[in-house]
């Protein structure tokens, strides 16, 4: 089928048979909500759709529905996601395996509708798994995988698309057969649920020591999740013919300068790298897919041979640098100290990052001896502060 990213994500959700969907519209997510509503109207969804009055309530309803023992789904973007922030911590703490699709969109102020990754990345501390997808097929497949992973380790998961580049562009997408998905995804059976036949109190006040232990349990769960992501992805590949791994590698094996990035910039980078390779440049890419938990060991292993690493972030942690860059540096630091990492912050506010920009990134990286202390926000010949 020829689907937008939004509709592909909607199919991913539908195939996973969530029993409660709670959603609120926000550009550019609305088509997901509308598609689900259309199916619900035709009686094809087989659950309950809650058309709530804010994203905060959407997450609240998903958490409690999940704790009542049913599979849940929601989708949002930008303002909506950060409005949920308080409850993202809550969901993770209660081990509610909610799966959410977030369409990266720049955060106000000022108002903007276009792609930027800061919204989901600023939620990286909330204890949710995070997957960054590059195309519509990956979106659909990752949503289904996310349910299995989340329900195995009992932590919520977010699948991240990009505003318009993924959400609204149409691509050919293979929609798996419902029966096959049913075979892949067993029914949701949480270890604890709100049930009058087994009354229990959920989420009371705990002591300092108890709190610490609950938190550490989640840290350990997160650490172990890397394995689970891998095995689920393998299983998915076996059943459906498509696997994505913990991250995507493109012509990485003998690359001297490696580009690390996430999202649609990754797909542009493949074209750019092919062009540069033809010119004899030894360049390659690692596209981050699983961001939380960050697959540290495998990342180090894959990047160890590089001479230089350039990171393109379509996001920034103000006062610091691009978040993928910062996170990558911290992963490398524990094992590898001698690969300079060059952080580029491009594409903020949804500005285009095209092949010429990526070429510039590679050439600037090649030229520079030492990585600057601040993120590079201006490419050669650019005048960012101008027009």
């Amino acid at each position, binding site marked *: 089928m020829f689907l937008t990213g939004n509709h592909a994500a909607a199919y991913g959700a539908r195939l996973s048979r969530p*029993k*409660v969907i*709670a959603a609120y519209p926000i550009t550019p997510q609305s088509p997901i909500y509308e598609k689900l509503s259309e199916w619900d109207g035709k009686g094809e969804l087989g*659950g*309950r759709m*809650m*058309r*709530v*009055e*804010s994203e*905060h*309530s*959407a997450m*609240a*309803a*998903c*958490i*409690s*529905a*999940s*704790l*009542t*023992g*049913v599979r*849940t789904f929601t989708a949002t973007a930008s303002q909506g996601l950060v409005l949920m922030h*308080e*409850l993202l911590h*809550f969901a993770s703490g209660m081990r509610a395996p909610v799966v959410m699709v977030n369409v990266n969109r720049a955060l106000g102020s000022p108002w903007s509708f276009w792609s930027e990754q800061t919204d989901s990345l600023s939620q990286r501390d909330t204890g949710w798994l995070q997957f960054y997808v590059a195309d519509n097929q990956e979106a659909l497949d990752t949503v289904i995988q996310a349910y299995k992973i989340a329900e195995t380790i009992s932590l919520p998961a977010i699948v991240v698309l990009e505003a318009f580049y993924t959400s609204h562009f149409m691509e050919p997408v293979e929609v798996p057969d419902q029966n096959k998905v049913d075979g892949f995804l067993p029914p949701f059976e949480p270890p604890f649920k*709100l*049930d*009058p036949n*087994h*009354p*229990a*109190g*959920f*989420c*009371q*006040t*705990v*002591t300092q020591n*108890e709190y610490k232990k609950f938190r550490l349990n989640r840290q350990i769960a997160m650490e172990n999740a890397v394995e689970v992501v891998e095995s689920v992805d393998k299983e998915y590949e076996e059943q459906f013919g498509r696997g994505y791994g913990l991250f995507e590698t493109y012509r990485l094996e003998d690359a001297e300068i490696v580009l690390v990035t996430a999202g649609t910039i990754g797909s542009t980078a493949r074209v750019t790298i092919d062009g540069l390779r033809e010119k004899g440049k030894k360049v390659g890419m690692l596209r981050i897919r699983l961001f939380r938990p960050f697959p540290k060991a495998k990342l180090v292993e894959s990047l160890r041979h590089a001479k230089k690493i350039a990171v393109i972030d379509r996001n920034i942690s103000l006062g610091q640098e691009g978040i993928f860059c910062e996170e990558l540096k911290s992963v490398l630091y524990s094992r590898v100290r001698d690969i300079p990492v060059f952080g580029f912050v491009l594409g903020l506010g949804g500005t285009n990052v095209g092949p010429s920009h990526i070429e510039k990134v590679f050439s600037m990286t090649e030229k520079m001896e030492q990585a600057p202390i601040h993120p590079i926000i201006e490419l050669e010949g650019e005048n960012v502060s101008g027009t």
Partner: protein
Amino acid sequence: MSLAHDDRDNLYPGHLGCPGCGEVIGLKLVLQAVGKQAIAVVIPGCIGIVIGPYPFSTFKIPFFHAAFETAAATAAGISNALLAKGDEETIVVALAGDGGTADIGIQSLSGAADRDENIIYCCFDNEAYMNTGIQVSSATPQLAWTMTTPLGKPGRKKNMVEIMAAHHIPYVATACSCFPDDLRRKITEAKQIKGTKYIHILSPCPTGWRFPERLTPNIGRLAVETKYFPLYEIRNGREVRITHKPKDLPVEDYLSAQGRFKHLTKDDLDRIKKEIDRNWDELKRREDQSSHS
């Protein structure tokens, strides 16, 4: 002789609420009427303490202590999950305070009511943020002292009951924890109805209202008998029925018994009396109109 606890109780003793707490009386009565086939939603507030600390629960039914402003949305999520599982029997009851209802929680409550979610929403109104130490809320009555309005609250009490009635949900009612049979009856009534049911329960608080803890029953009775807090029901936003005929005692009896009103002047009292009479006349008029239409 074999003495035993009340077998209707749906709570265990051993909670850390204040001695003399009028809210916990209401909670007890609500849970008695709700029964065992139920799930409760609790939010931060006095009830958030009464549920007990992990791993001990004072409730005999399951509950979820959710985030502050989410009582209604959380309850709605559970309600929909149950319906999705084919369970039409289990009651979902939200137990929120006045702050969590009229202030920070009003959005999610209005949203749930707008969608007519199948929940019983109980607002336990002790007329301030009592758990955090007596700070003003929009449910604090005009002129009342609180720690954050030491000269008395300038604005009036937000009328949550009428706001909820304006949503035209099937059942809205006022109740008071000191009128046990009336409160239990209203919860039982709510259980029979599908859709959003809102019960506003006046809960006298000795700690915050400043009166000796043993007088909680009297304060609650006086609130109703002086017409300061009438007991009535509104169905579908239009049919009004007064459920208790008050003795029409002087409102000074109610106000002078509480330290939070001790600074009231004679003019204040007169104004309050006029307003009470006006509100009561209007309520009676609406009741008459309801019975004729």
